[in-house]
C-alpha cells in the first residue's frame, strides 16, 4: 500500500520562500492583497515559520517550512459535518471543495493551523489568470482549502505508470515545493516503500515530527540536527 510522505531537512532550509511561491503558482492559490493579509487572511499552503533560538548576542534563526501534515490520525477529519475532508486510501487528507459548506471547524481543530479559508471569491488580476493551472480547480468563497501534496501530480504520474504497465518509481513524483527548493531540502515519496528515499530518511537519527505528542501521526517528517 502507498502512503505518501514528505521529508523536510530544516538544516538545509535557507528560508528563501521559493517553495511557498511555487505552491501558489501550482495550486491556483489566491493572493488576497495587502489589506486582507493584514487581517490575517493571507493564504499560503506552504509557509516558512521563523523561530529564534538563544539569547542576544548568540541568536540563531531557525526556519521551519510548515504545510498540511497529512496526519494519519487527523483531528480535522471527524469534525466535518459533511465529509468535505476525508482520508484517501493513499494516506492523503483530501478536500472535496464542492461539499464544503464552510463551518471552519476543521481549521479550528488543526493544531498546525495549516487550513485556509476563502473569505471572498478569488481574484486573479491581469495577467495572472493566464498562469492558472488547468489541473487544479479554483476554489469559490466560503470554502476551506489546504495543501494536497500536489495530488494532481501524483495522479498524473500514476496514469503514466499505468499506461506503461509499471509501478510509480521513487522520485518520479515531485511536489511543486520540492521541485523548486534550491537547497534541495524537500523530498517527496512513499513512506510505505522501505527502499524509497523518504522512508530511509525517516529512519535517520535527525528525523522528527511536528507536535508529535498529540498523536496525530503526521506524514511530514522534519530533519533537524546540529547547526
Amino acid at each position, binding site marked *: 500500500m502507498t502512503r505518501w510522505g514528505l521529508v523536510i531537512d530544516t538544516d538545509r532550509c535557507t528560508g528563501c520562500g521559493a517553495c511557498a511561491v511555487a505552491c501558489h503558482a501550482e495550486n491556483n492559490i489566491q493572493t488576497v492583497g495587502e489589506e486582507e493579509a493584514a487581517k490575517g487572511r493571507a493564504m499560503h499552503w506552504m509557509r516558512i515559520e521563523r523561530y529564534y533560538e538563544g539569547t542576544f548576542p548568540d541568536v540563531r534563526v531557525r526556519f521551519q517550512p510548515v504545510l498540511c501534515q497529512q496526519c494519519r490520525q487527523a483531528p480535522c477529519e471527524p469534525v466535518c*459535518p459533511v465529509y468535505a475532508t476525508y482520508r484517501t486510501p493513499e494516506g492523503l487528507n483530501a478536500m472535496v471543495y464542492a*461539499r464544503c459548506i464552510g463551518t471552519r*471547524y476543521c481549521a479550528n*481543530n488543526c493544531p498546525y*493551523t495549516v487550513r485556509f479559508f476563502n*473569505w471572498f471569491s478569488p481574484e486573479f488580476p491581469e495577467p495572472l489568470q493566464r498562469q492558472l493551472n488547468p489541473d487544479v480547480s479554483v476554489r469559490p468563497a466560503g470554502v476551506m482549502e489546504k495543501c494536497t501534496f500536489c495530488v494532481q501530480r501524483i495522479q498524473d504520474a500514476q496514469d503514466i505508470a499505468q499506461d506503461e504497465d509499471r509501478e510509480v518509481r521513487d522520485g518520479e513524483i515531485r511536489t511543486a515545493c520540492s521541485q523548486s527548493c534550491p537547497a534541495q531540502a524537500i523530498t517527496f515519496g512513499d513512506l510505505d516503500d522501505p527502499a524509497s528515499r523518504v522512508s530511509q530518511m525517516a529512519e535517520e537519527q535527525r528525523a522528527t515530527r511536528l507536535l508529535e505528542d498529540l498523536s496525530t501521526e503526521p506524514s511530514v517528517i522534519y530533519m533537524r540536527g546540529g547547526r
Partner: protein
Amino acid sequence: MSNAVARSHEEQLIRPLTAFRPKLFVGSLVTGLLVGLLFYSWGYQIVNDIGVAGINRPVFWGFYITNFVFWIGISHAGTLISAILRVTQAEWRRPVTRCAEAITTFALMIGGLFPLIHLGRPLIFWYMVPIPTGRGIWPNFRSPLMWDIMAITTYLLGSLLYLFLPLIPDMAILRDRAMKVSPRSVRTLFFRVMALGWRGTPQQWHSLEAGIRAMAVIIIPVAVSVHTIVSWDFAMAVQPMWHSTIFGPYFVVGAIYSGVAVLMVAMYLLRRGLGIGEYLSDKVFNNLGLLFLAFALMWGYFTFAEHLTVWYGHEHAEMTVFNQRISGEYAWVFWTMIVTNVVIPLSVLPFPKGRSPLGTAIVGLGVLVGMWIERFLIVVGTLRYPRLDFNVGTYSPTWVEVGILVGSVGLFVFLYFAFVQTTPIVSIWEVREGHHLEVKARMQHLAAAKEEPHV
C-alpha cells in the same frame, strides 16, 4: 366567592391582550427596526461573502459562535426551570412557567440561526440534513456539529410542545370570549385554531395533564443534553483550554445561570409593564433569587476548578491562553466577567432585600453580560493562540457582526412583545387551579380543626 375571584383573575390576565399600551407599541417599533438591522446585516453578508465579518485565520470563529452558545444557553431558562418546578410540584411556579417557556422557545429559534449565519456557504446548509438524495451524500455523524443539529431540533420541538400544551385551555378561554364579541375576526380565528377544539371535558383535562406531566419529565434530560453537546463543539477539539472534561456540566450550569438571569429581567419588566405584581409577587422573585444564588455559586465553583487545574498543570500551550485571560490582553474582559458573575451576585443575592424584583433584575443584567463574555473568552481566547506560536492572531468584529448581535437581541424582545400581546403571559387556568387547591387545603384544615377538640 371562588368564582368571582376566578373571574377577576381572568380579567386581569387578559387585559394586556386587549388594551392598547403605547409603551409596548413603541417598544415593538424600536425592536422591529433592530430586526430589520439583523436581516440587513445578514443579507449584506450573504451577498458580499463571509469575509465582511472580522473573523480570520486563526480566529475562524468569532461573534457568531459566541452568540450561538449564548442564545442556546438562554434557552435553558424556561423549559428546564419550569419543568423542574413542575416535577417537584413547587406551587409558586404557577405564574412563572409560561413566561419562562416562551423565553426558551424564542431564544432557541434565534440561537439556531447563528450556525446558519456563520457558514461560509449558507445557501447549501442543507448538506447537513440527512436527506437521501441522488447526490449520494450523507452527513458525518461523528461531527459534534451534527450532534448539535439533532439535539437542538429535538429541544426546539419539545419546547414548542411543552409551551403549547398548557396554552390550550387558555386559548379556549380567549376563543370563548372573542366569539361573543367578534366571531368573524382574524383574532378569533387565531384563537379557535390554537384552542384545538378544547371543550374542557374531564377526559380532555385528564389527557392534557398526562401530556404535560410526561413532557416535563422528558424535557429535562433533553435540555441537559443540548448544552452538553454545545460544550462538546469545543471539548472534542484538541485546542488548549477547549479540551476539557468538565465542559459538559460547566456549560449546563452556565446555561441555566444565564437562563435564570434573563428570566429575572423579563419578569421584572413584565411586572412593571403589565401591572401583574399580584402574580409575579415578591415571593416568586425571592424563591427564584435563591435558585439564582445557587447557580452563581455553582458557576463560580466550576470556573475556579477549570482555571486552577490548567494553572497547576502548567502546560505551555494552555498557559498561553490562560495568561491572556488572567493578566494579558483580555484580562479586563475576564475580570469584568468575574465581577458580574461572582462578586455582584454573591454580595446581593444572599440577602432577602437583595432578592427584590429590582435587585434580582439588576444582577440578572450583569450576569447576562458576564455569560456572553465567558463564551467570547472561550471561543476567541483559545483561537488567537494556536499551538505553533508563529500563528498568533487577533480579532476585532466588524459592523456586520455587531449589527447581527444587536439585531438578535432586538428579535428576541420583538418576539416576546408579540407573544405578550397574543397570549396571557401568566397561565390563567394554572393560577385558577392553584387557587382551588389552596381553598381546598384551607377547608380541610378547618374541618380537621373542628374535629380536634373531641380527641
